């Protein structure tokens, strides 16, 4: 569980750092924000986080089975 928390913290920190960058620097110009690219990013990120957590879960289950042997 600790590992997941660390991972989550890292991700959240990263997002915060990133948000600052985009507002200060002219990265997110009107074209992209009006094109709603952030929605795409949110969806892709959600999918990937889901897959990652799923893989971690498989990893843990496997570890449990290995310990039983």
């Amino acid at each position, binding site marked *: 569980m600790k*590992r997941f928390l*660390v*991972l989550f913290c*890292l*991700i959240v920190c*990263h*997002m915060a750092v*990133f948000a600052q960058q*985009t507002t200060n620097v002219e*990265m*997110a110009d009107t074209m*992209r924000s009006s094109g709603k*690219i952030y929605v*795409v*990013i949110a969806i*892709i*990120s959600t999918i*990937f*986080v889901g897959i*990652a957590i799923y*893989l*971690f879960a*498989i*990893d843990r289950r*496997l*570890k449990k*089975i*290995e310990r039983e*042997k």
Partner: protein
Amino acid sequence: MKFIYQTWWKVLAVVLIFYTLIAGFLFHVPTLPILHETIRNLYFHVPMWFAMLAVFVISVFFSIRYLNSGREEDDLAAVECVNTGMVFYLLGLVTGMIWAKYTWGEFWSGDPKQNSAAIAFLLYCAYLVLRNSIDEEQKRAKIAAIYNIFAFPIMIVLLFILPRMTDSLHPGNGGNPAFGKFDLDSHMRIVFYPATLGWCLFALWIATIRYRIRLIENKRNNIN
């Protein structure tokens, strides 16, 4: 082999890929005709091939080690690496086809790069078929290991050398400006390199999970 049970590099893989998912869409990319925003596919299509390459290299390593040691585990590791590599191979091929549709005009235009990628795919399919067609375990492991060691350099030649010697639509090939020009753009590098490393580790992670399942299955089969 303690490495495969550790967690830090799995977290690293996830964080790196997560970073590229966000940065890959938002950071600056060069404005180019035809490509437009699809240049961002560089962060997703190319790492599939690098991930495939990484697990195939590891597979060859274990094949050589099997021939040296004769340990069954090495053979299983080699096979599971190839199994995982095939998934990323298909992903690379399909994403390449989709990208090609909107930049080259066709899903499959018979381009040298595409054709040799298809041949190399069959080469590795043949590896899996060959391995599964032999019942006797030691013979199977030995033949598969030797085949794998030979298949790898042929795959490298087919994918990365032959298409470069002829005209190809794919970047980096004869008569065609390479991505190298844009890779020099450090804006793309800071996303592309982490993406490559992240996906390589991700593929390795999946391969280790498959390997560990295979070990348990193998143990069970031996007992019964």
